[in-house]
């Protein structure tokens, strides 16, 4: 989404514990669902490597969501609006945009998408911590920001171990657009 498309930040946003938990949990769930749909799309196009990586990322995000519930005293999933939560900037900060995909993409590209999402998540929690007046929420948001920063480091390491695609990775010897 363009900068021009971004909406101004809402002034009267709730920063209570319930809102924080709902957003933190929804963010992980939305990210997990999106990665799972990416994996399905890659499977449909026989791009097994990218599919496998997206499925792994989906599992990781689901695990984060489950951990959040585990650490929540009530252990219950927050009740979200039927259409999902509304976010500044369109979708959840950790939700990757479908337009980032390419049918010939490689694990390296998938990790770059994940890296950008983790950075946005880190920024989101850091911002949340700075805005809230609730000490409990601030502490939790700071912890989450640190956790996301750790994820950024993990993915950066993962990227170092992942082959960098060749320049012409998009080249398809049997392209979709042909005219014989």
């Amino acid at each position, binding site marked *: *989404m363009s900068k021009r498309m971004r909406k101004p930040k809402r002034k009267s946003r709730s920063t209570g514990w319930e809102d924080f938990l709902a957003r933190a949990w929804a963010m992980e769930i939305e990210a997990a669902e999106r990665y799972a749909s990416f994996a399905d*799309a890659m499977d*449909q196009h026989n*791009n097994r490597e990218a599919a496998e990586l997206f499925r792994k990322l989906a599992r990781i995000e689901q695990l984060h969501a489950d951990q959040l519930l585990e650490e929540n005293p009530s252990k219950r999933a927050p009740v979200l609006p*039927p*259409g*999902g939560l509304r976010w500044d900037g369109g979708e959840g900060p950790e939700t990757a945009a479908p*337009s980032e995909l390419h049918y010939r993409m490689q694990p390296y590209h998938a990790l770059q998408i994940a890296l950008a999402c983790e950075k946005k998540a880190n920024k989101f929690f850091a911002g949340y911590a700075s805005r809230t007046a609730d000490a409990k929420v601030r502490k939790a948001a700071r912890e989450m920001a640190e956790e996301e920063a750790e994820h950024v480091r993990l993915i950066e390491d993962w990227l170092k171990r992942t082959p960098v695609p060749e320049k012409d990775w998009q080249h398809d010897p049997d392209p979709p657009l042909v005219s014989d």
Partner: protein
Amino acid sequence: MSTAAAAAPLTWQAFKSDYKPIWCPGCGDYSVLASVTKAFAMLELLPENVAVVSGIGCSSRIPAYTNCYGFHGVHGRALAAGTGLKIARPDLTVLVAGGDGDGYSIGGNHFLHACRRNVDLTYVVMDNHVYGMTKGQPSPTTEPDWSSKLSPGGTGLRTFHPLVIALAAGANFIARAFSGDPNDTAQILAEAIRTPGFSFVEILSPCVTFCPEQREWKSLVRPAPVAATDDPVRAARRILTDDGFNIGVLYKGGRKPYQPLLGRATKRLADLEAEFAI
């Protein structure tokens, strides 16, 4: 809106079917599917009270990916089928969906008359300016200088302007949305469904396979600078002078929807079946 659930509202995920979409990775239609299901959930509808009707094309696969009743019809005839369904079953929420080729070329005439009739349904066009399913031919909304292997040098033809045509033909609700912003698109769709009469929502939905340059749409779209108007003259001026990237509800009229009195069926289904038997 025709129906609402009495029990706890369903989540948007409950409106998705188990079929995995087979669109190209990066296609905007994935997000449109999410927006459609989110709109249904926001309105607290039930899948059994919703029908998604389509024609032919990549985007017309959408009924299969929802958990609602679906009708994947004939090329360009989605609006005809949707209109018939809504007239016969006014209790249903009918959403008709398709692409720019299906809706503006093959189904162009149905589009005009659906706007004119103003039956209470919502028409979603996922506009990517190209026939994707048949490998990249120019559509009515393709820019005249869009050059490809199938249209070297471009068609040189003036593009079809669906929003202003819808307005002139009598559509009661006109909006433009962008697939890259699925949550705002869901809001627009919910408002379209909620508004009585024929609601037309054009969703810019990039085809990254045949028009990779459309990935840049995300940096071109912006919220429409003014709120929706109920004045068709003002709306026409705005729509005609914008660059095609203003997003939001652009026109919202107050025309009464068309709903004829339903007569009693004179034939049973079995009679009709016998009539058509070969």
